[in-house]
């Protein structure tokens, strides 16, 4: 199995987001960046498939040089090779632009890939667009938000989360799968893995070298504003005997908030 995993560098989930209004951008100073949590499930699944079936696990990231750190993390977990598709543009929130870069990288560099794994969304842009868009651009079937994968011969069975349940899908390989929490429990890097990852050379390719044109890369999303949400004011806090406070709260929910 030739498996490709796509990873993105994002601020960790404990981050407090601050905005630079002039440029509609997030202030990066002081943020701690990590591999997007859902991407870790994708890397882990790829490693488990390789352990069971043999093959090669390659990781790819589209972004600035700083993204090399998340590629090294995936190598330290056990991935065989990595590639950085260098994109110096600030966050565009434009999934199609990224999907075009990803699809071109697959066609140009990894044509024999059997399985493309993604996180179900990047933590931050929260788009959930790139996996399905990449699948369409490459003409491959997709299963998104997946909590279970089983491989057959030339096929894959995936369980994907839907409202109040799940769907079991079968896909012909090659295919695109995006990982949801619950797919597996990602491993920690070992010291040996970290040392080996440090020694690995990570090639870097530019968008232009992949054959992407200015037209392909022009963002379709025009950002008109970026802000933090209006803060919620603290409300009324009730203390006292449980039965009493419960009665008082229900009266407020009914009379004042009008939600009961």
């Amino acid at each position, binding site marked *: 199995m030739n498996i490709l995993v796509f990873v993105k560098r994002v*601020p960790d*989930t404990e*981050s*407090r*987001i601050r905005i630079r209004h002039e440029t509609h951008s*997030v202030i990066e100073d002081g943020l701690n960046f990590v591999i997007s*949590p859902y991407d870790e499930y994708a890397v882990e699944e790829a490693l488990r498939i390789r352990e069971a079936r043999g093959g090669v696990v390659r990781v790819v990231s589209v972004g600035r040089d700083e993204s090399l750190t998340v590629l090294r993390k995936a190598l330290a977990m056990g991935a065989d090779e990595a590639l950085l598709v260098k994109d110096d543009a600030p966050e565009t*929130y434009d*999934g*199609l632009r990224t*999907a075009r870069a990803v699809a071109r990288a697959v066609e140009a560099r990894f044509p024999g890939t059997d399985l493309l794994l993604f996180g179900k969304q990047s*933590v*931050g842009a*929260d788009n959930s*667009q790139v*996996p*399905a*868009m990449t*699948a*369409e651009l490459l003409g*491959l*079937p*997709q299963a*998104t*938000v997946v909590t279970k994968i089983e491989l057959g011969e030339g096929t894959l069975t995936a369980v*994907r*989360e839907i*409202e*109040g349940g799940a769907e079991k899908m*079968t*896909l*012909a390989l090659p295919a695109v799968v995006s990982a*949801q*929490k619950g797919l597996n429990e990602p491993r920690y890097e070992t010291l040996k893995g970290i040392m080996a990852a440090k020694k690995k050379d990570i090639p870097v390719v530019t968008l232009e070298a992949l054959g992407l044109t200015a037209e392909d890369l*022009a*963002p*379709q*999303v*025009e*950002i*008109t*504003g*970026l*802000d933090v*949400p209006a803060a*919620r004011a*603290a409300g*009324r*806090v*009730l*203390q*006292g005997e449980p039965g009493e*406070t*419960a*009665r008082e*709260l*229900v009266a407020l*929910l009914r009379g004042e*908030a009008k939600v*009961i």
Partner: protein
Amino acid sequence: MIAVFMETRDGKIKKSSLEALSEANRRSADIGCEAVAVLAGPEPEEAAGPAFSAGAARVHVLVSPALADYSAQGYAMALADWAREARPAALLFAATAMGRDLAPRAAARLGVGLVSDCVKIGVRDGRLEFTRPIYAGKAVLSCRLRSSPQMATLRPNVFPLEGAAGGTGEIVRTDVVIPDGAVKGRVVEVLKEQGGEIDVTEAEVVVTGGRGLKGPENFALLRELAAVFPKAAVGASRSAVDSGWIGHQHQVGQTGKTVSPNLYFAIGVSGAIQHLAGMSSSKVIVAVNKDPEAPIFKIADYGIVGDLFQVVPALTGEIKKALAE
């Protein structure tokens, strides 16, 4: 025109699709165009009624036996072919499991941008301006799309629904050709969660438990409270999920789901920043916690400082009484 894809489950249009259609109808009035609904399937016209009462000027039905079961590939082909002919100014979806799976695929097929998970839509210079949370609600992005049709998914439970009873009107039929072998992935089985629980993203009331519950068995208290409401779901904090007390599909927060119910109960939830991100857009927030300094009280509309094991059963009883009146 603004077109809205109508998702059906068990032969009925989903409420979140009708919410999106209601919003399309309001915005089309601002632009001076009409809102239409798009249904796909082997005999989709049978489900069309509610789309008319939610404001559709017409219902376009895309018909093929190959659309009997949902597949992103088949549905994206049908929708993209239709959109190239019909040329809607905008094409909207509900941001459901299906909408989030289908909209990006259709957008890529049309070669256009997509805005995910909108919570507000305005009109500026004749184009739609979308507002959406990013970083699970820690920031809010406004944007427009340069490409056409302008495509977006709309978060369920946010846009007001107008009339959802039956209705009649003009149905325009398009026969769709899906070539043999073009669909390489399909759903073979739908597995419903036991007890037919509704999803936290679709519930009008969410009752969420955290570490303060002390163990998985105590989610029973929250289920009893949720059962008092007609459309409620049980949620959980990340630490409750990571402790193995309840399935991850219940998780609310930055690595779980983002919810906007009418009423949100945070029970024994301290209020870590990644949890607050996922639920701050709820209309009314109630917190129950024994620690008066818990961060959750800083954003809750109403709080009770006390022992949840006493407060929650009392609340369940009081709400039951109030609803019975």
